């Protein structure tokens, strides 16, 4: 283990992430990742696909307190969840972003430090953020499956 801390972190090094979007998978990649080797047909509903093995794949979006998430749920032919994958994770704009003059003071500093203002800020440690809204979204999708997708073939 080797840890090299930033020396004396001044309060001013804080940046607000300007609408960071991380794309993990496209719809096609998610289809291949969740149901490898299967083929997919549309159902007429946006984001809902019938899988050749009898299951379904549903792409949905949820809005959290600070984030906007696109995710895919693979449903087995027996109605159980096969896999959930996050396709895209957008962190919301903070209030700091609106203040252009405040942000301007970091422009020169970002090149010298590993801090990337508009880049991809990875490896964030912090108090755990809840994924309850995704769990609720999955419940909603399973309800939709029970009421209108199951047996509709």
């Amino acid at each position, binding site marked *: *283990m*080797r*840890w*090299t*801390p*930033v020396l004396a*972190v001044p*309060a*001013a*090094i*804080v*940046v*607000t*992430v300007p609408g960071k979007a*991380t794309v*993990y*998978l496209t719809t096609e990649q998610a289809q291949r*990742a969740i149901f490898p080797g299967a083929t997919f047909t549309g159902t007429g509903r946006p984001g809902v696909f019938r899988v050749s093995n009898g299951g379904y794949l549903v792409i949905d979006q949820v809005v959290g*307190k*600070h984030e906007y998430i696109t*995710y895919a749920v693979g449903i087995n032919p027996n109605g159980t969840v096969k*896999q*959930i*994958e*996050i396709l895209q*994770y957008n*962190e*919301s*704009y*903070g209030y*700091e972003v609106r203040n252009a003059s*405040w942000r301007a003071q970091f422009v020169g500093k970002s090149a010298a*430090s*590993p*801090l990337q203002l508009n880049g991809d*800020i*990875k*490896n*964030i*440690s*912090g*108090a*755990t*953020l*809840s*994924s*309850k809204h*995704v*769990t609720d979204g*999955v419940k909603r999708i399973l309800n939709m499956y029970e009421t209108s997708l199951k047996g509709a073939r």
Partner: protein
Amino acid sequence: MRRQRPLLGTFVEIDAEGLPGHELERAVAAAFAAVALVGRLMSFHDPDSDLSAINRGAAVAPVAVHPWVARVISRALALHRLTDGLFDCAIACELVRWKVLPDDGPVTAPATMAAVHLLPDNHIAFDTPLTLDLGGIAKGFAVDRAVAVLRRHAIRAAVVNAGGDLRAIGPAVPIHLRDPVDPSAIRFAGMLQNGAIATSSAATTLTRFGSGQVSALVRARTRQPIVDCDAYSAIAGSCMVADALTKVLAQSRQPDAPCFRRLGAVGFITPSHAQQRFKGLDRRIADPYFSNAPARRYRA
């Protein structure tokens, strides 16, 4: 390859490289499966988990658990002793009482981990009815299991991040810290190589209870909630130890405590930048002199 799945009640991200596409895909999927298994075994919320089974029955007769559960409890007991009782998974009865955790069963009387025993053949027994929550250590353990799976697949460079508790193998990676009060504010903290960092804060779970405030962080000795908004970070060789030490640091506020040295760990406390702003705001409201001053004077 970077993938993210909702697991352990949070978002788990795995970023790995060094293998051909389909092999990497398999390795990452196997690592996620290990994290999911930890979730199923150690979830407080799931009545079918091993943890729920011991909370229901271990005070009556020894309960058999999965080897991973026995391993986590064994490490938790060692950390409990090493930190003079500051790390304690038996504080869950307070969390249930404060409704931070759901109260499906009877609320147990306060007890400590000293009443928890690991018996041969992965059996757990309690001296007295108590409520155990592995929330302070299981996420770190899950990250360690995921890293072990990636290593077995010959992956040399990877980062596994379970909602803020992360472990890196391979080259040094930049680590950023999220502000506990304003999650959209991120700051660069340092470079980490072959190690783990975990951060805890009361701010994300702060809720009103009765006439006061409570959170998911509890002082083991006084059984009082921690209600400040600082971020408590610990860096260690394993994510499980880092995860556990954040709870110790939140209570002791001493990164130079002997337990950190003995575990080869580093700890640091970061005050919330958003909280500092609010403090400025409070002062403006409370002090009549400041109330007439232009608001922008108090912006950070």
